[in-house]
């Protein structure tokens, strides 16, 4: 093996490193925002108009996204959600890191969730959590530097049962691996290799995210 290859990798690593990458959560946080962006792109391709709003109603031009589980009504920070408007249909809201109530009555975190705007507004006014049954779709995001532990797939299968199997998506950065073998057997919507360099996989994911919006456009 060429020592020159190792030396060039070492040199480039030093040049591109930024302080925020030194935390183990960095990949996870950025991945959730990236997947949220892909979701908005899917809505855009279905003809949606998008705007942003903070939990208190206004928007200053700064998107504040929560990447750990939180309440849709929390005003700890001016958390931002996107408003998605499709022609002649009730508006929707896309959120990051909110708790949703599953069909069992238990609360779970949804990394990304799309809800009717009426559901989001009612929950913010009354300090309660949205119902998963009302969601158009949810996305579970998993960003790992190494192949995903099988437990991630197992817990998603449980979550899917409580959120509604047809509306939940699983997105991971890693290639399929053993988690993929498990998900292929039990899950309808799962995506692997979701990183910008995997143009084909990202394109397929956006296309699959378009389907719920396509269906929603038909009254």
């Amino acid at each position: 093996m060429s020592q020159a290859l190792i030396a060039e990798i070492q040199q480039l690593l030093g040049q591109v490193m930024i302080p925020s990458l030194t935390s183990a959560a960095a990949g996870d946080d950025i991945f959730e925002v990236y997947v949220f962006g892909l979701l908005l792109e899917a809505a855009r391709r279905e003809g949606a108009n998008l705007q942003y709003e903070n939990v208190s109603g206004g928007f200053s031009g700064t998107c504040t996204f929560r990447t750990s589980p939180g309440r849709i009504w929390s005003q700890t920070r001016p958390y931002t959600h996107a408003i998605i408007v499709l022609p002649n249909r009730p508006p929707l809201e896309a959120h990051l890191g909110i708790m949703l109530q599953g069909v069992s009555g238990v609360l779970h975190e949804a990394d990304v969730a799309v809800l009717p705007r009426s559901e989001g507004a009612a929950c913010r006014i009354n300090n309660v959590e949205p119902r998963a049954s009302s969601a158009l779709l949810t996305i579970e995001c998993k960003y790992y530097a190494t192949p995903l532990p099988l437990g991630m797939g197992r817990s998603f299968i449980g979550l899917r049962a409580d959120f509604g199997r047809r509306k939940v998506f699983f997105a991971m950065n890693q290639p399929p691996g053993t988690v993929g073998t498990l998900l292929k057997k039990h899950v309808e919507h799962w995506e692997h290799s979701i990183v910008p360099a995997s143009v084909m996989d990202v394109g397929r994911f956006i296309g699959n995210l378009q389907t719920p919006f396509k269906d929603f456009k038909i009254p």
Partner: protein
Amino acid sequence: MTDHEAALAFEQFSALLDREHLNWLRTQVEAHLRLGKPEQREVAVLEEDVDRRDLFGLPARRRHPGPKASFLGTIEYTPKERLQILAMAIAHAVPHVLEMANAIPELLHPRQGEPAARVIVVRESETGEVEEKTLQTAASAEKLARLRELLGRLASEAAK
């Protein structure tokens, strides 16, 4: 690449991760390597003779190999496989993350041509602590693509 070269390169990159404050990545890779590589093995299932009796008339349980079946076991990763896993882990922890950060402003723009919003990411802990970071998109796209390509090449060489 020989096993010895792969083991040396693994050590070099592990030390580099520590220097770049990416200790968490080394820990994650080591934890994954400790789990071992899954491997299907054909193993003879043992069968017991339950009807046999010993000299005193008590049940004499004797086991003998029965038909073979497929079982899942684990073996240690080879030095080359360890280097391949480390190279891919660095690719996912550095260039892929930075390329996502670079893609986000374009994906979040409300309408074509509008300036991208500033993005703040907030992580709230269960104890109520709040960690806030502004999304940084400083790294050059060419350098990131080159780093990703070189790490891919290193992983391919290790796989040979």
